[in-house]
């Protein structure tokens, strides 16, 4: 049973993508397969999460090769939560694409590419082997490269070239770090690595490798000062594709950071985790200040992704610097809660921005307007994810931010806690700007230049609002049921901090 559960989140998108690629140009089949596949992925993720919640960390060895030799798939609560989130984003984006995606991109394999991306993302969440993690990263990147460039518009090529280059540099750094770590320890299985690294003396070499991983995953996660590819590229693909990127891609980098800096590189925490904490603060500030200067809907949101990556790594930094396990668990739980909240909210905001573009004909906030009057429902659905983004109670973001700030104050890291609060205020300012420009002010009188866009019919608008509404409901549910989500996040954080359980599940020959 656990073996099947671990393989299903990989098998479902793989089969969906493969069958769709075989049925090339049969667009209606692609659409149906993609929707069914995404729903099945979400179901598989939820089943996995329930199983892991009841039975603890589970692991399986590919081809029955025992642990340090074969490739390990492993799911603890953190992995399982991330798989569920990937399923939610995948389903919402696919349903949104069914109405919003243009025929050209659909015919050239948009849906199988979405599933290839989900395959890479789920693989990265579930693997227990560092080299295998590299391979899943490449699967995910390859799919995202094509999704970004698909359509070949000028802006897409412009963003795509930067995105591809910086991600390839990151992959080369990642690969070098994996190689050196293998040279030092003779293994790449993460559980085995955790054991061996603890017993080693030359920790300066280990810390150096840890820094290489910080750079490699930092580029993927868009941490300061390695984020430049993100605002250059995320606003160029079609709305649904950029929502998928915004929801998932950087969060895989954050996941990898949290995984290696809780499981492997914990020996020199006073140095490494302090560095992560400083970077978190700088990431928050630069991201939010960058957003202030933008006048394009999706570019504002892109800079806010960067800003919020800082919150996610902030919990990781605090967790490494405190002695009390309860406080470390609180900080990490804050990070995990923040990731969950952020993925849902950010995907939703990108979807909303896509609808406003189809209604107004442009992403430029100056030329948008009057949406509160013409689309009151859309306006409400914008506010539901926009307010928690800046931490307004009682929605999801408030509780995530609360636990992070509380952990920061209890750990006496006042600078970072203060930064987090101020950045939250600036975030609210940006969201108010979007609200005032796109929704509140009257529609600008001059006609919109980009008339080649087909404006939405009321029926299409209703269909597009369906996934947005579902994600908004989810945001409210997380906010109202915060206690349950927080318990889940705390258990996941405790599993991350008590590494024996993870090591036991992998090395102890299958399920405990």
């Amino acid at each position, binding site marked *: 049973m656990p073996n099947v559960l671990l393989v299903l989140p990989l098998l479902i998108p793989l089969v969906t993508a493969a069958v769709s690629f075989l049925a090339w140009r049969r667009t209606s089949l692609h659409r149906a397969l993609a929707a069914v596949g995404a729903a099945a992925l979400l179901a598989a993720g939820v089943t996995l999460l329930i199983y892991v919640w009841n039975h603890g960390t589970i692991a399986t060895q590919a081809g029955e090769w025992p642990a340090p030799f074969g490739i390990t798939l492993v799911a603890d609560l953190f992995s399982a939560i991330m798989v569920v989130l990937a399923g939610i984003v995948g389903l919402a984006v696919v349903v949104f694409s069914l109405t919003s995606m243009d025929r050209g991109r659909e015919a050239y394999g948009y849906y199988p590419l979405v599933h290839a991306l989900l395959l890479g993302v789920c693989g990265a969440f579930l693997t227990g082997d560092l*080299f295998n993690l*590299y*391979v899943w990263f*490449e699967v995910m*990147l*390859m799919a995202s*490269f*094509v999704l970004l*460039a698909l359509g*070949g518009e*000028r*802006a897409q*090529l*412009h963003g*795509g*070239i930067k995105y*591809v*280059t910086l991600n*390839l*540099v990151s*992959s*080369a*750094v990642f*690969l*070098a770090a*994996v*190689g*050196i770590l*293998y*040279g*030092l320890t003779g293994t790449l299985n993460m559980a085995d690595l955790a054991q061996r690294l603890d017993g080693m003396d030359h920790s300066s070499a280990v810390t150096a490798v840890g820094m290489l991983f910080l750079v490699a995953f930092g580029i993927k996660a868009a941490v300061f000062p390695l984020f430049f590819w993100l605002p250059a590229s995320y606003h160029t693909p079609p709305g649904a594709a950029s929502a998928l990127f915004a929801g998932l891609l950087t969060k895989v980098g954050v996941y990898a950071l949290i995984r290696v800096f809780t499981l492997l590189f914990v020996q020199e925490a006073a140095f490494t985790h302090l560095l992560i904490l400083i970077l978190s603060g700088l990431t928050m500030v630069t991201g939010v200040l960058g957003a202030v200067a933008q006048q394009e809907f999706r570019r504002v949101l892109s800079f806010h992704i960067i800003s919020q990556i800082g919150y996610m790594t902030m919990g990781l930094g605090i967790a490494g610097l405190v002695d009390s396990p309860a406080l470390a668990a609180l900080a990490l739980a804050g990070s995990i809660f923040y990731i969950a909240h952020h993925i849902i909210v950010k995907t939703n905001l990108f979807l909303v921005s896509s609808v406003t573009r189809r209604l107004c004909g442009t992403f430029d906030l100056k030329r948008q307007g009057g949406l509160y009057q013409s689309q009151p429902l859309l306006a409400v659905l914008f506010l539901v994810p926009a307010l928690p983004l800046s931490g307004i109670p009682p929605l999801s973001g408030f509780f995530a931010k609360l636990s992070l700030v509380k952990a920061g104050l209890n750990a006496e890291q006042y600078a970072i806690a203060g930064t987090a609060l101020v950045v939250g205020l600036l975030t609210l300012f940006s969201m108010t700007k979007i609200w005032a420009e796109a929704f509140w002010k009257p529609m600008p009188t001059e006609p919109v230049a980009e008339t080649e866009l087909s404006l939405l019919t009321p029926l299409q608008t209703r269909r597009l609002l369906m996934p947005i509404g579902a994600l908004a409901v989810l945001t409210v549910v997380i906010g109202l049921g915060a206690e349950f989500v927080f318990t889940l996040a705390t258990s996941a954080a405790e599993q991350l901090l008590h590494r024996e359980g993870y090591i036991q599940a992998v090395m102890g020959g299958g399920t405990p």
Partner: protein
Amino acid sequence: MATVLAIVVGCLYAAGIYMMLRRSLFKLILGLVLLSHGANLLIFTVGGLTRGRPPIVPPGATRPPTPSADPLPQALILTAIVIGFAVLAFSLVLFHRGYQTFGSDDPDDLKVSE
């Protein structure tokens, strides 16, 4: 032998980064190629260099003779080469398309006229 390879890897990295800093999309690609080759050679070198001792278990024995070459870094490199090949093939096409669209090889000329 390891020293020589260490210098070679260093040169590959230096050349790769230098090429990436030039103002040309084509040289950017060459830089990425050199960088990925540097990473592959690095794995090969730090994995331990053993000449002429394949890790094959002799008849009757239960483990390969020591010292024997570690096959795992070679397997890793092989995988990395295949992935690198695919990714570079894609980026060549993307960059070529960019060159056609923007009519320039200079990254600074990639402007979006909207």
